[in-house]
């Protein structure tokens, strides 16, 4: 099959790949660019483990042809921390036991980031409704809700300074 050239911007850096046009952003991120922090599970938009941010909107990267990400800003879980330190959301997932096997965690972190970008002080109900596209089979979700709450309060403090 003929390949198409595709420049991609991931976590602030520029990449260039040549790919078959039907390939998903998920596969290109994981297989061609080595961003394996973004996970693969259902490949049909049901579980959210493949969630990444595309121009500040979260998408299921298993459903998006990579070519559709041309010219857009892609952020993955590897790219959300500004420095070596964990991002406050990442830290909160560790502190609040918001993860067990961790396979859903990158997706939840990306969705939580999008939520907190929109709403700096979400209620438990708002958190639950925003995260309904991400499945977790291990935690029962208590720790995830707690993590988002802690992260929200941390981020509010940071934003005030």
């Amino acid at each position, binding site marked *: 099959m003929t390949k198409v050239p595709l420049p991609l911007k991931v976590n602030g850096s520029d990449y260039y790949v040549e790919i078959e046009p039907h390939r998903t952003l998920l596969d290109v991120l*994981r*297989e061609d660019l080595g*961003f*394996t*922090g*973004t*996970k*693969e*599970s*259902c*490949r*049909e938009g*049901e*579980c959210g*483990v493949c969630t990444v941010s595309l121009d500040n909107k979260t998408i299921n990267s298993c459903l998006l042809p990579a070519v559709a990400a041309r010219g857009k800003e892609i952020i*993955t*879980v*590897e790219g959300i*921390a500004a420095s070596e330190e*964990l991002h406050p959301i*990442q*830290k909160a*997932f*560790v*502190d609040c*036991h918001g*993860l*067990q*096997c*961790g*396979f*859903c*965690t*990158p997706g939840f*972190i990306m969705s939580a980031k999008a939520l907190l970008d929109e709403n700096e002080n979400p209620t*438990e109900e708002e*958190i*639950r*409704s925003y*995260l*309904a*596209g*991400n*499945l*977790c*089979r*291990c*935690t*029962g*979700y*208590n*720790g*995830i*809700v707690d993590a988002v709450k802690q992260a929200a309060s941390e981020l509010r403090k940071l934003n005030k300074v």
Partner: protein
Amino acid sequence: MITKDKEKVQETTVVGKRLNRLDGPDKVTGKFVYGADLDASGILHCKVFRSSIPHGRIKRLDISKALAYPGVRAIMTAKDIPAHIRYGHTLKDEVVFARDYVRYYGEAIAALAADTREIAEKALNLIEIEYEPLPVITDPEEALKPGAPLLHPDWKEYTGNPALIRYDNVCTHASIDLGDVEKAFEEADYVFEDRYTSQMAHQGYLEARAGMAHVEADGTVVITSSTQNPFGLLGNLSEILQLPTSKIRVISTGVGGGFGGKLDLGVEHFVALLARKTGRQVKYLWDREEEMKAAAPREGSVIYVKTGIMKDGTIIARQGKVILDAGAYSGDDTVIASVAALVIRGSYNIPNVKVDSLAVYTNKANCGAYRGPGAPQTYYAIESHLDKIAEKLNFDRVELRKQNALKNGDLGPTGQILESVSMEETITKVVEKIEMDQPRPKYTGRGLSCAIWTSAGGSSCAYVQLNDDGTVVLITGGKEIGTGAITMGVAQIVAEELGLDITDVRLVTGDTHATPFDFGAQGGRTTFNVGNAAQIAAQDVKWQVLQAASEKMNIPLESLELQNKKVYDKDNPTTNISLAEIAADRVWNGGPILGRGSFIIQPTEYDTSTIKGGVYPVFNFPSFHTHAAEVEVDPDTGEVTVTRYVAAQDVGFAINPTGAEGQITGGVVQGIGYALSEEIIYKDGFVLNPNMTDYKMPTIMDVPRIETILVESSSKVGPYGAKGVGEAPIILPAAAIANAVADAIGVHIHDLPITAEKVLKAIKQKQDK
């Protein structure tokens, strides 16, 4: 909320604390490597060609076109496997590739290796097959009828654990006989009988099974996969590969959820065989459809339960028949049948018990271990049945449970003497918290369920290596699968013993050539068993440290103590030496310090005359549990919403309360899915919903915040008094929710899952009456 054993006051600095798990930072940054992330240059991709019908004879299988497809490197079928090779958990009845016959929809027929995943997928479609369809048996009760066609006409030739009782389509028949049940039914004031059925359910781990393999020059096969049980795979691999176990190395990588589903072979034998055939490294990642059609789900079941009870509420007899729908091969149901048999009596002191528990072959995927195997459906049956009895006789359902609850010194179902029993305490606490007696609006209900549960035994080993900077490496064949058992529990035990911080403990786990034996991440056993082995190893290190310090400081050993990473002279604390200094010194003087721990649970004593054909005859260091659910039912749609959920669990001692609570919340939510929505739906032997859209697992919107109560009734043998924790939380939600739904609508539903359709139908039928 935690309640402590009054007498037991332990001064600890690391265990018992809510510390963060060690693998957290890697998991939140995407650095953690799972089986699905494995890659290597020049790797080949495996795909498996699977049966498209539930039962039939293979008339023609032609792989030539697929083999000729550019980029395909090898295809293997039954022809490549010696005909005598069958493998299995307790009974060797399974084949690597279907030979002449397929017995379930999704059974492996061929495996191929190709340059890319896409080529592999395309080539799969070029394999040609013709079947002669055979009659399909999907109902285990049909399979039991005299004259039913035999799924395994050669069953007598299969080898397995000699304790198993087998006949016709029955691959296990375990039975328990305690007291005199016939006589007790005659004496009982009332006798009640019910029948319950339950569905097949998937573990639902988000990381599909994955792994890869290569072959070393001397023929050693090296397999890396997301297995929960690296040592446990060696036996079957050795038979399939015809290699001694020592020439197979299984390395377990990060596991993206297991819940029992990754205990047995899934990818490992296929990649090993293909790696050997091609001389290349081969990787296999299952897709979701394969997971739903051919993994190792929880079996469906039919359960009959009969109870004899006196006017004063004393239960004097319990009889049960459990029929497990094992699927095409026995899988783990040979063991699960025994477990279900133990559970039928429940957490009550019933003196007369008779159980027959059968695992039966049908034309479905063979079933495996899923967290709390055999228990959720059995507790659902007996606890629903008990609520019905309470209603009919006008007993208070809480008091009836308390009255009959197991107590210290009572006998278990096979005659073991029970210790550290906290049944009543768990009931009292849950009932109080959920406010069982508070008035409730129409179509709202509350339900309760109680359980006794086991923790698997087996042996575990650990080394603790003291590093020259005073930190340690814990080296064990045990495996962290997400529960926190090792990255919290065992690490905390090691840190506690040596006065370290948890972050001073590094972990090397789950590699059959690099780490010492462990019986696998199963049965809630890791913190208990690996914890014990690691505790012994850490104590060994401590002893060696004190001895080295004694020599170096010229102070008798008894006068020394290890604290704050230093060895002190107790009488003169200003005289001290750091752990790091001792460790570094020993590298060149006297030899590096390495601690060693090997642990096995002594088998629990029981009355062997009470059980026949049982390969899991007794509860190990049992724990006790009560759950309560509050539900709202929408009378127009039948939809059930769980509005509150409270679970009390006796954990013995919570090595990390946050970790223990996380096990409970996670298990409960999985159990809510099992209760209300999850089902692998079969029709005429075909799976109708092999995807996550139609296999409905609970999202964060579907469940309330789970409320947990940790009860600590110390066990004699567990580290610091801990009991097994991880499995039990899933065994009670179906029972509690079923009882809550019945409380809400006034009808008991006898078939899991309790879907909106079933509820609506029940409401309608009640109204029509």
